[in-house]
């Protein structure tokens, strides 16, 4: 078992004919992901990496039975791409694209919530179920199948943690990068809930960062609802207020979003907080021993 993606995932790639889209399509196929369709308007009938390309998502879904999509289109077309997948009945949409205006995302996530469509991202590395399915850009060579579920607002920081776990021989059930934007799809809570229900997952790693209050909410949720051990990490203890630290959502503002508050919330919920990324793996290893 695992969450969100597995061997049964039939993936559609939006923006498959673009440079990024094509590159990562090849990487995903190489990893073993079942990429069944690509979509680029006007390119219907072509093929990319052996994958048939369609003009519309609706047609691609009809012809190939795609049940997940990943988006590699530029920011100004990405909201439309997300909506197109959701409107076509795809239950899981993963948006890698960075730089989508936050106000555009409000309407998009509202619509997806109404439809019951899962959105991962935007501005995220996607997700991977080791040995089964990779959707997005998380390097396939650092993961291994195992018991640890990872949910993170970050990209490379997540790779760092995966790397440290794998180096200690501890595999992962599913690694989910939920992205660094202020308005996004799945949050910590929804992913925690999925890990709680997943029999394969034994421990959970949560990687947060400054900005917003998602970590505080997650801490409360963990205390009330999660029986599995959780280890947290919060990036940005040294970040100054009012400055955007790379991610659109990584900013301390309006008196909220400080790392210290998030760490305090986790500690109050009984969740150990690692001091640096590699320590996460140490704590997990200790828990498992």
């Amino acid at each position, binding site marked *: 078992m695992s969450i969100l993606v597995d061997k049964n995932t039939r993936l559609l790639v939006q923006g498959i004919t673009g440079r990024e889209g094509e590159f990562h399509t090849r990487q995903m196929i190489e990893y073993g992901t079942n990429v069944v369709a690509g979509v680029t308007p006007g390119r219907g009938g072509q093929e990319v990496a052996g994958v048939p390309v369609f003009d519309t998502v609706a047609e691609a879904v009809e012809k190939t039975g795609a049940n997940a999509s990943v988006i590699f289109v530029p920011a100004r077309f990405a909201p439309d791409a997300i909506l197109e997948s959701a409107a076509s009945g795809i239950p899981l949409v993963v948006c890698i694209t960075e730089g989508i205006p936050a106000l555009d995302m409000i309407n998009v996530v509202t619509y997806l919530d109404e439809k019951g469509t899962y959105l991962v991202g935007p501005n995220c590395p996607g997700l991977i179920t080791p040995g089964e399915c990779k959707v997005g850009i998380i390097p396939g060579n650092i993961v291994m199948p195992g018991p640890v579920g990872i949910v993170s607002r970050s990209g490379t920081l997540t790779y760092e943690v995966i790397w440290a776990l794998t180096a200690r021989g501890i595999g992962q059930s599913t690694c989910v990068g939920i992205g660094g934007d202020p308005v996004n799809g799945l949050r910590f809570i929804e992913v925690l809930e999925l890990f709680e229900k997943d029999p394969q997952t034994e421990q959970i790693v949560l990687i947060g960062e400054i900005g917003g209050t998602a970590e505080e909410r997650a801490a409360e949720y963990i205390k009330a609802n999660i029986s599995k051990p959780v280890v947290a990490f919060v990036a940005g203890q040294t*970040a*100054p207020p009012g400055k955007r630290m790379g991610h659109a959502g990584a900013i301390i503002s*309006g008196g909220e979003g400080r*790392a210290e508050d998030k760490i305090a919330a986790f500690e109050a919920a009984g969740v150990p907080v690692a*001091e640096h*990324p*590699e320590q996460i793996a140490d704590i997990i290893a200790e828990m498992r021993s």
Partner: protein
Amino acid sequence: MNIHEYQAKRLFARYDIPIPGGDVATTPQEARQIAEKLGVPVVVKAQVLVGGRGKAGGIKLARNPDEAAARAEEILGMDIKGLTVEKVLVDEAADIQDELYLGVVLDRGNKRVILMGSSEGGVDIEEVAATSPEKIVRVTVEPLLGLREFQARQLAYGMGLDKGLVRQFVGIAQGLYRAFMENDASLAEINPLVVTGDGRLLAVDGKMNIDDSGLFRHPEIEAMRDTAEEDESERLAREAGLSYVDLDGEIGCMVNGAGLAMATMDIVKLYGGAPANFLDIGGGAKADKVAAALRIILSDPRVKAVLFNIFGGITRGDEVARGILEALSEIQTDVPMVVRLVGTRAEEGRQLLADAKMITAESLSDAAQKAVAAARGQLA
């Protein structure tokens, strides 16, 4: 991106929000002329992109044009939290009877735009939130409906506004909401929204932050960018497509990925150092971008060591190495450098750097500790 008070207020005025008469001066003479034209007592206000102007002496009253010139003379060139005042706004002084707060913000937790109002204006709203939270009234905008009149009225009545002012307030709230939405703002704020002696509402101060991701569709706002106010390194980084924030420490950091960059800063601190910057070169950076990044880091005289932390995914270790070598071929420097390369083509990268007298590290902890030691002159 932040814009100046005067820019925010001019934008608000386009949405029928009443603002005081006034104009911007860069010299005391200009300030005098503006005051003459207004013909009433004025307020001379430093235009800097940082809070706390008032306490720093950046806002002063002037009863006549001579005083306006004198106050402008005092304020122009003043240093406020590291920024030099280049412009002052000379505004009609309002006859202030009461000060309110009105703001539009993005409520990230609920994925909604909200309006906040308070009868306690003129002070920092976070302070009000901390000391008298019951004084803040909120309404949540439904994306399907936009801000409705009844919601603006709810705010007004909730703030205890005089009934005679409700209609004016509703217009201002709707204008501020539209200004927020139509300009991809992340914050639009009137503080204080003043009730004048003759029963009018007036936006005496204005603040607006714009979502960088939305700037592409607002060239007129992009044109408001005050590069004179921008840190030179931050400007260069922005032009190179790098995500960079200048900090006070002594260890320059170059990292791929925002979260990892923050974690790298944090671990530097954990081991007793202080980061000189946040710097994310992004995914898949090529050599020229890496070189630009290194030039920016080395231009900071406080930097005593540089820490490269690259976890290769899309980013390739060899590209990063080439960028480092490219920058070092131009710059003479004695600053010690610690390199940690992992992932895609890390080995090739390490080989390229073998001759460059770099300190190498395997783990992030190791790298951070070595960088801190190097900055103290205990390594290299």
